[in-house]
């Protein structure tokens, strides 16, 4: 399979077989523009019987159920499940924050594997994949343009193999996706969501709430929004509680350097992070957003499969 060959750069080979059994989402029904493998909200040209309805002028005569018409002595139209295409939109945070972690615990490694898996599963189902990536203060919207699937995947692999860096312009990133997202589908937002403020003057918690507000608009357009939060264990539990001095530098280089004794700097860290993660969860839930919290200490394959299995703190499927 040509698709698997390109995306194999992002995914372990062993994961490909497992992903073949996955689909992007289960009901509710989608509303796509082209024919695909997902049940549509509309009755359509699929193979599976759905219902009968009386004939109305203008209906396709090919869909008349002659047997039913003979029984009921009137024209009955056979309705079948429409199998429509699903658009998977990936919003990827490629800011410098995502570079944290060594080896298999690297956040970027996990995030790009998830992106690759989504694209792979979408390709298997002939679904359309769109993506936008925020990095170095700019948004790469090349993935939002219509392109052949193979070309789209190659572009995705190319962008995902570049290292993360700089600031992620969340406002521009979401605007670019929103302006081209008018059909129903699934939007995956993959990030650590630790610092989504535009600058250090803006309150980070407030910025997160605004981000959720913007994503909630996606839902009104029929999008299922899945927040995939990728965190390293160090970002949840402070591990430098020592009496020696540490100098903490912002990966994004926006916040000033903090220097001090480890045990003092980490005072209340776990509690503050815990409160923030609760804020993320509550903000997402209250707006009908799905939220999946992953830790890079979990094996990569498990984290990737959780994107499709709905495991985690919240189901992948939206609970509108």
């Amino acid at each position: 399979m040509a698709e698997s060959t390109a995306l194999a750069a992002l995914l372990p080979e062993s994961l490909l077989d497992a992903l073949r059994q996955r689909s992007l989402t289960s009901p509710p029904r989608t509303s796509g523009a082209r024919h695909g493998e997902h049940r549509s909200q509309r009755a359509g040209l699929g193979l599976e019987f759905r219902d009968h309805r009386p004939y109305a002028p203008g209906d396709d005569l090919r869909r008349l159920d002659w047997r039913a018409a003979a029984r009921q002595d009137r024209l009955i139209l056979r309705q079948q499940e429409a199998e429509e295409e699903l658009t998977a939109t990936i919003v990827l945070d490629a800011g410098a924050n995502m570079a944290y972690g060594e080896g298999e615990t690297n956040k970027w490694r996990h995030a790009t594997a998830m992106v690759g898996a989504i694209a792979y599963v979408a390709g298997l189902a002939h679904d359309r994949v769109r993506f936008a990536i925020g990095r170095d203060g700019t948004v790469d919207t090349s993935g939002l343009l219509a392109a052949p699937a193979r070309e789209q995947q190659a572009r995705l692999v190319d962008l995902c193999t570049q290292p993360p860096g700089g600031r992620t312009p969340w406002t521009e990133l979401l605007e670019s996706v929103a302006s081209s997202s008018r059909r129903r589908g699934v939007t995956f937002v993959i990030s650590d969501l630790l610092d989504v403020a535009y600058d250090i003057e803006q309150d980070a918690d407030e910025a997160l709430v605004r981000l959720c507000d913007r994503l909630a608009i996606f839902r009104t357009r029929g999008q299922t929004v899945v927040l995939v939060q990728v965190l390293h264990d160090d970002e949840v539990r402070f591990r430098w509680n020592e009496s020696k001095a540490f100098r903490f530098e912002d990966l994004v280089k926006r916040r000033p350097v903090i220097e001090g004794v480890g045990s003092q700097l980490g005072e209340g860290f776990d509690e503050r992070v815990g409160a923030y993660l609760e804020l993320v969860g509550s903000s997402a839930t209250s707006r009908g957003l799905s939220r999946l919290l992953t830790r890079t200490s979990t094996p990569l394959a498990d984290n990737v499969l959780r994107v499709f299995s709905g495991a985690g703190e919240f189901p992948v499927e939206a609970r509108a």
Partner: protein
Amino acid sequence: MTLLAPALLLGLLGLGLPVVAHLLGREPPQVIRFAALRFLKAGDPVVTQRRRVRDRGLLAIRLLLLALLILVLARPSSLDDRQLAVLAEPHDAMIVLDASMSMDLRPDDTSELARARDVIADIVRALPDQSRVGLLTTDANGPEIAPSLAADEVMNALDEWLSDTTEHYGAKTLAACLPQAVATLESGSGRPRVIYAVGDRTARGLGSLPVAAPDDIALVPITTGTSLDEPAPSPPEHVGLVDVAWTPAPEIDPRAIRITATVHRYGGDPEQVLAVPVELNIEGNTTPAEVNVPANADADVEFTHTLLDREGATPATLRLPLRSDALPTDDVRHLWISNQDQLDIAIVNGDPSELRAHDEVFFLATALRASDQHEHLQLRSLAPDQLEQNLREHGRAAIAETDLLILANVRAPTADVAPILIDRVREGMGLWITVGDRVATREYNENLGAVLPLLLRGPVYAGTAPGRTQARTEAFASPQLAHPIFAGLGGELGLSQTQTRRLMLLEPDPERATSLALSFAGGAPALLTTSLGAGRVGLLTTTVDRDWSDLPLRPGFVPFVQRTAAYLGGLESAAAGSVLTVDQAKEFRGADSLTVIDPRGEAHRIVADNDGVLRFDATHVPGHYRVERAASRRDEVFAVQVDRSESDTSPATVQARAPEHDRASAPGTVPRGQLLFWPIALLLLAEAVWRWRRAIQ
């Protein structure tokens, strides 16, 4: 220029530490590139490694400042013209240091005692090789070092003692220490022996020394200031509380007392009167006052205070709250006050007479009322029949409140009441028996023999001898100053001219523990005392009126009666009469053991010796002392004060002179540390200016 403490220069090595620490810096902090930076708690900034000196000028100033301070601690000094008369050949030396209170005088920032320490250091340093040196101070608690070759021991012991004691009082005079110093210097060594007496020129210091020491020992007086060949400089002015006393003030309130403090000003401008603040503190309540004191004169300041109705004595402290006094040690005095400190004296007049010359009560009452402490005395007289009737009716309660019962020429109490008297004496009542024509020896011996110091033999006419019928008179001999009644008596009592025509002879009895206080010139006892239980008994072997003697006409009669009554009545254990000077011993009777609580709160348990006397001599510290005994008849307290003579810093004539022969001189050293104060001040100023300039940049 030399250094008295050169070892402290090792501290200069420490100057390199700040520089090295500055350059090497601390371990660089571990750098963590982190995403969740905003969840960290930013604390105080941590000084990290600096490998470059940023402000060389400021560093140089501070290092120089540090170096100068170390130099000051090393006590730089230089040799001056002061010549110490130190024997040139190897000898045995004993240094005697004047540790009296006047040595606490501070003409400037340095006390005379600290100067004396430097003088002693000069002497030790100037001694020829193979000289042995020892140390003695006039303070009983000071170091005593026998002469040896280890001169360091002298300085170490001296420095340790000086660091342990901040105030000095109760010391002996230098002259009083001479015998001990002479005894310490062995005579068999064949080497010259020298006593170096170091002190000030006061009467208790060098002024107390004789012209020369005995036993061919050279006595070298050395002052802490100018040479003895030069006129004595005027000591700095200071004031001291030299006396405190109190009396009841019933005209104000039955519970009121009047406290008088005497302030003396030593030296000062004769043209100016100095206003001195005085504070009275009673149980935390401070009452301020002020008194104007002329130069070299006393001035009294009076306080009145109303005590609460309560048992026992109250501690009071008088203080001169002066910020700077050249001799602060004598600026405080302690005393006990009480509104229940009355001595109840009952005089039984056995031979009342309308003629005063033949009335014992008249003479006794007149003498007692002339006492300084007459306000504390409550006198009453009664007839023998009244006493016996009261005792029969009320028993012991009839004399339960009586502190002293005087049987003045009284016929012997009958056998039924005498045991009551004896029991009361055992409980603590004083009994004074004066004889006369009414005293029948047999009845007295039978009924009161248990309390008499000695049994009575019978009256005789003085000077009566076999074959001679002409009566003569007998005079009193000098009083026994060792007896507590006459302890501290200065000079003649005034009884030596007394003519006693008749006296009571006593039966010698070595089994009886008696104390002879006064005797006749012929050797017959005149006044004997003894103790029975907690009480004391006195026996005067002649009359206190003019029947047998002209004793009441003599000038010494008043103090004689007052002292005897105070002793027998136990007035010295009450608040008014309970003042000792530092290191004066206090004696108690009437118990096997008791506990004395000193001003620091430390308890001293003392036990009676073979004579039944409990002696407490740990009165080193001025202040309030309290006595606890199992069965105390009253609240026993006493205060310890500094002798006022210790406050006197005026120079006295020094008779002692260093011998001229075989004398070598050693230069003394003068501290020069003060010369460094100006550079230090300038550097501090420069440092401040530097920092100010950096701040405005």
